[in-house]
């Protein structure tokens, strides 16, 4: 096991900068998600760490050893591919044992290790099957067993759950996390699914256009996004744009919004505030006034019922705000109703413009 350090990594394909000066420290034994839209460079970064492609500049170290010019077959990594990439001409056991047999280990050793790996992914009895006889979830487990049986220093997963249906995906998320904990391997996981990133990882790195936008634990990125992109890509956010007053912003129409978190900015510069939809309380009257709370008035334009919660779209001064309310059965607001929105400054994050 080993940590992975990526420092100032850049890679261009022609004029396209796939990775632009990316630095991340993946600590030993951690579970990391690389999150970003397609074309953000997350897969390029994973392939650089794997060694399928070499960087133009920058450093990659696995367990403190520089590997940026070491080809993939010498890097001692384990990789799970989106389409599983199982060898169709081999049985499940031969697939899992492939990494050991190319290292010319004894047959008995291989058989033992393969069985242990298959037991770990709960496929102990399916060693004799062929990949095409397995379901998607089972193939996924075989691919995982094959990747970890060689005891790699780091496990790389390229959208491993992308091809599974929703229910199976949730099962596999839990399963993958359990296995990762059990063997304690540093795991780097590429996904475009924000929910997957939030539920599974210890830390998340958000990429956009080849740059690392923000990196940190899921709660930190969710509660303290450093850019409008991070705020809207990981979860939903209402964004207000205006000028900073130091402790918040003033909207163009003069309304002040107080922010209790985020960047410290010089007054007078352009800035935004981000508020999560579930942090806003919605009511038909002002109620007991709380002098500290942010307050806006608007009109419900649409309500979407989703079982446990409802989403209200509230129009206000040309902007549509999103509010998510748990369905406690107390009150339901009708479309067209005038409402008051309130939320605390602590739920408001100040973000520098740009």
């Amino acid at each position, binding site marked *: 096991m080993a940590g992975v350090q990526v420092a100032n990594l850049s890679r261009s394909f022609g004029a396209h900068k796939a990775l632009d000066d990316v630095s991340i420290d993946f600590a030993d034994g951690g579970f990391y998600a690389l999150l970003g839209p397609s074309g953000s460079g997350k897969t390029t970064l994973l392939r650089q760490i*794997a060694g*399928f492609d070499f960087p133009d500049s920058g450093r990659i170290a696995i367990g403190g050893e520089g590997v940026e010019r070491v*080809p*993939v*077959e*010498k890097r*001692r*990594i*384990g*990789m799970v*591919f*989106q*389409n599983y*990439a*199982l*060898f*169709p*001409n081999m049985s499940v056991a031969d697939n899992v044992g*492939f*990494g050991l047999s*190319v*290292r010319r280990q004894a047959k008995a050793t291989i058989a033992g290790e393969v069985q242990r790996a298959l037991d770990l992914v709960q496929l102990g009895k399916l060693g004799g099957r062929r990949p095409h006889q397995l379901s998607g979830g089972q193939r996924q487990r075989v691919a995982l067993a*094959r*990747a970890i049986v*060689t005891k790699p220093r780091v496990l*790389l997963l390229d959208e491993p759950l992308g091809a599974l249906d929703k229910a199976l995906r949730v099962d596999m998320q839990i399963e993958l996390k359990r296995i990762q904990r059990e063997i304690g391997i540093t795991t780097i996981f590429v996904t475009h699914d924000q929910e997957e990133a939030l539920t599974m990882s210890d830390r998340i790195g958000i990429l956009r256009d080849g740059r690392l936008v923000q990196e940190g634990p899921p709660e930190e990125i969710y509660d303290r996004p450093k850019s409008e992109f991070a705020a809207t890509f990981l979860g939903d956010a209402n964004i207000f744009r205006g000028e900073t007053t130091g402790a918040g912003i003033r909207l163009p129409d003069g309304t002040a919004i107080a922010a209790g978190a985020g960047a410290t900015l010089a007054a007078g510069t352009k800035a935004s505030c981000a508020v999560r939809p579930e942090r806003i309380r919605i009511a038909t009257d002002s109620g007991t006034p709380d002098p500290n709370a942010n307050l806006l008035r608007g009109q419900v334009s649409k309500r979407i019922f989703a079982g446990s919660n409802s989403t209200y779209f509230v129009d206000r001064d040309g902007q549509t705000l999103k509010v998510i309310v748990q369905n406690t059965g107390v009150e339901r607001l009708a479309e067209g109703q005038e409402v008051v929105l309130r939320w605390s400054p602590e739920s408001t994050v100040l973000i520098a413009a740009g």
Partner: protein
Amino acid sequence: MAGQVATGSRSGLRSALPLLLPAYLWLTVAIFLPLSAMVFFSFMTELPLSGKAWSFTLDNYATFFSQGLYWTLLLASLRLGLEVTLWCVVIGYPAAYVLAKVLRGRSREAIFLLVILPFWSNGLVRIFSWAMVLREGGILDTALNAVLPFKINIDLMYSYPAVIIGLVHSYVPYMVLTCYLTLQAIDDSLIEAGRSLGASRLQMLKRVIIPLSMPGLVAGAALIFVPVVGSFMEPRILGGRTGTFYGTVIEDQFVAVFNWPLGAALSFILLAVVLVILALASPVLRRAA
């Protein structure tokens, strides 16, 4: 493949009949009827032309077994087929690999065209071009002597290697095409997965790529081996006196000696031998494929 067709439902077959009929009608009229006539001829003493008397006989088949010459020629032709097939694998498979897995876009199209091009040229033209290249004082001989400081004499014309060269040239595109198709179907992520598990390129080739492209190799080998065993044009033109093979003897019976019954009998013996070889090889080939 055959198994899948056989399991097709009965109603599926009925609705497919109008689609199958033209092809089978054509095969019946154009191939099966003449072929049946040939089977008929092979059991006759004489061709029933210009009122010659004829009767049924097994002599034509007996000739093959009573004269060691035909047996020797058949073995030589089988060996020729094996060697040409082998050379086509050695030359064609790497080319197919590069086409399928290394080249992309326009350069792939260009190289592909170069592989197919000999296909589109006339067979006789191709063989006579080789004759010009291989003979003493020919293109190869002159070119080598222009470059090399010492005098050498390249005269491959009318030799066994010349026959091999001509046949390999004619048939290698089959191997490239069949192997290209199976190699292209191998997902690149399989190769990447193997490398991430620590396999060298040679290990990947041996354990994953060749096994997965076996159907293409087998199809290519069958497409090449069978016609080469019966070939007569290349052996005759490029082989000269050394180019007497089973196929040229059959051709002689039809064109020179006018002994159609013997020619037909020899053809069907060849067909039977080839079928037996393919049948014997099929369990091995099926496992490989």
